[in-house]
């Protein structure tokens, strides 16, 4: 469903807009949150259910989504807890976000089978029935109307699927689990999806994979808007993948104008922090590989770095110690403007997790996604194409801007290494999606990637494929590359990096 606009996309964005609208318009002295009850009726109008068995259930799910969008936990279904409980405390400029970030709304989950090989209506109960012949565990038999698979015996080898001349047998699993490279999706006692928080690395891909909209992450838009309205100086640090996310007419300069129109003081390209990161990772590579570490893994993708450290603890030291571009940029902002609040705006759910880290917390106040930002634009009725272009004083190199696309990070680091006069070629191995990252780590553990620079990305295609994006991946990648060409600096080393441009 990635790249398609479905009723789920619509509902998600409506929730962000409702929350942002109230945050912008409410009386700051009042704490009446009945508005959010009404929101659930605006999003699900009428008396007839559209997607599920009951309109009441549809609205109940919306209300849990609203709670998550306010940064609150979902409520337990077995005890009474008022919908508005905790909302007054959310209306603060303080960080409210806590674990777990990615949540299954249990009663929205349809408890899909975990992994199943099943005979469909296409079965013609043919005379040959090769499905039975090829089965190594005698799990397929011919019933009265069609072939039957004994689920207790089936080992999901897929031979019957291959053998059937009518494509009548199919294998399917849970879309959430199929999207989860960390293998963190388990089941509760009712067969519904449950996230194992020890394994989850908050990549957020299950959120956009679930066809029943049963998974959602918490948001900080309410606290961000409260900070803006309370007169705080807020700096926005925008991830390199922001280009092309807000429609064909929203040029980078107009997007920046739009962010400022929300009441944000200044907008900084996180590509600046990417340049800092490239220089640092190049230094680490030249210093440590192969003397102290067999290889070096990039550190900018939070989910990948966490995944590598969790699944291969003996290789944890091989992941770069370099700060992520988000942190490097935020540190610079806080150094130049100590009183300012920093919001990171990106495609990423995992950055929300990273910002909860004790070392990162002092620098990054809020993290929101592009999709959440779109909700803010919509709530404030900001028409991006009508705005003047903000001249983006060049903050990042081409290589820094290309961090958003898979392959860009490793290329940026290699370019710095080359520019330093290092003669030998640096071998690069890269992987996007945690499924591929897992394979890459296995090769690394077997000693097959010694001397390599490893680029890991949790999302397909890199950051442009993040769960918080609005644009299709190929179009976003093209836009990012075109914008990168506008920078007069080719590599990180060409960027002066002294002060953030005004």
């Amino acid at each position, binding site marked *: 469903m990635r790249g*398609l606009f479905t009723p789920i996309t619509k509902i998600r*964005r409506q929730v962000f807009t409702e929350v942002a609208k109230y945050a912008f318009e409410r009386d700051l002295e009042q704490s009446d949150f009945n508005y959010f009850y009404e929101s659930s009726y605006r999003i699900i109008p009428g008396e007839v259910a559209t997607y599920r068995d009951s309109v009441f259930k549809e609205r109940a799910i919306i209300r849990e989504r609203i709670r998550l969008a306010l940064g609150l936990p979902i409520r337990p279904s077995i005890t009474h807890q008022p919908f508005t409980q905790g909302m007054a405390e959310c209306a603060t400029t303080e960080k409210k976000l806590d674990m777990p970030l990615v949540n299954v709304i249990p009663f929205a989950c349809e408890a899909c089978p975990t992994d199943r090989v099943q005979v469909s209506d296409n079965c013609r109960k043919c005379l040959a029935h090769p499905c039975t012949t090829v089965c190594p565990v005698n799990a397929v038999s011919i019933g009265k109307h069609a072939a039957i698979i004994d689920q207790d015996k089936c080992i999901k080898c897929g031979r019957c699927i291959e053998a059937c001349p009518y494509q009548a047998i199919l294998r399917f699993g849970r879309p959430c689990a199929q999207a989860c490279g960390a293998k963190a999706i388990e089941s509760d006692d009712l067969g519904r999806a449950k996230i194992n928080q020890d394994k989850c690395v908050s990549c957020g891909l299950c959120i956009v994979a679930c066809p029943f909209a049963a998974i959602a992450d918490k948001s900080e838009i309410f606290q961000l808007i409260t900070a803006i309205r309370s007169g705080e100086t807020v700096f926005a640090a925008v991830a390199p993948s922001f280009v092309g996310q807000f*429609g064909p007419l929203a040029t980078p300069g107009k997007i920046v104008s739009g962010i400022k129109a929300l009441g944000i003081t200044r907008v900084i390209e996180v590509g600046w922090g990417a340049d800092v990161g490239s220089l640092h990772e190049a230094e680490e590579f030249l210093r440590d590989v192969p003397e102290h570490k067999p290889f070096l893994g990039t550190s900018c993708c939070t989910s990948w770095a966490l995944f590598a450290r969790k699944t291969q603890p003996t290789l944890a030291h091989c992941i770069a110690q370099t700060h992520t571009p988000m942190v490097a940029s935020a540190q610079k902002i806080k150094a130049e403007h100590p009183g300012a609040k920093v919001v990171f705006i990106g495609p990423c759910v995992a950055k929300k997790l990273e910002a909860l880290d004790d070392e990162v917390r002092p620098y990054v106040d809020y993290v929101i996604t592009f999709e959440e930002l779109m909700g803010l634009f919509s709530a404030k009725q900001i028409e991006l194409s009508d705005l003047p272009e903000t001249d983006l004083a060049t903050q990042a190199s081409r290589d820094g801007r290309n961090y958003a696309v898979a392959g860009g990070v490793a290329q940026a680091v290699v370019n710095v290494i080359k520019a330093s006069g290092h003669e030998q070629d640096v071998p690069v191995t890269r992987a996007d999606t945690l499924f591929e990252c897992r394979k890459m780590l296995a090769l690394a553990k077997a000693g097959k990637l010694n001397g390599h620079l490893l680029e890991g990305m949790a999302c397909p295609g890199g950051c442009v494929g993040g769960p918080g994006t609005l644009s299709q991946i190929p179009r976003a990648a093209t836009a990012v590359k075109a914008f990168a060409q506008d920078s007069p600096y080719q590599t990180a080393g060409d960027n002066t990096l002294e002060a953030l441009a005004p």
Partner: protein
Amino acid sequence: MGVIHVEVCAGTHCTMMGAMNIMDAIHSLEELQQEMDNPCDIEVKAVPCMNLCRDEVHGPFVRVEGQLITHAESESVMAAIMDRCK
């Protein structure tokens, strides 16, 4: 072989509600048309906010050969274009 002119509103609300995905769907038709017996050319343009949002009428807004489609979705827009391509 005719040319079908399509305008897609790329205002903030329409973009949030899927205008970019509609553009993608229209582009997917360009390829599909090349495989048809009588292919027609599709000329698609993203235009600034059409200022058409009213109480009960919302975007995405799309014009196919001048004819307005409100609450547009990929399926309604593709069907309108395919209809005119016959």
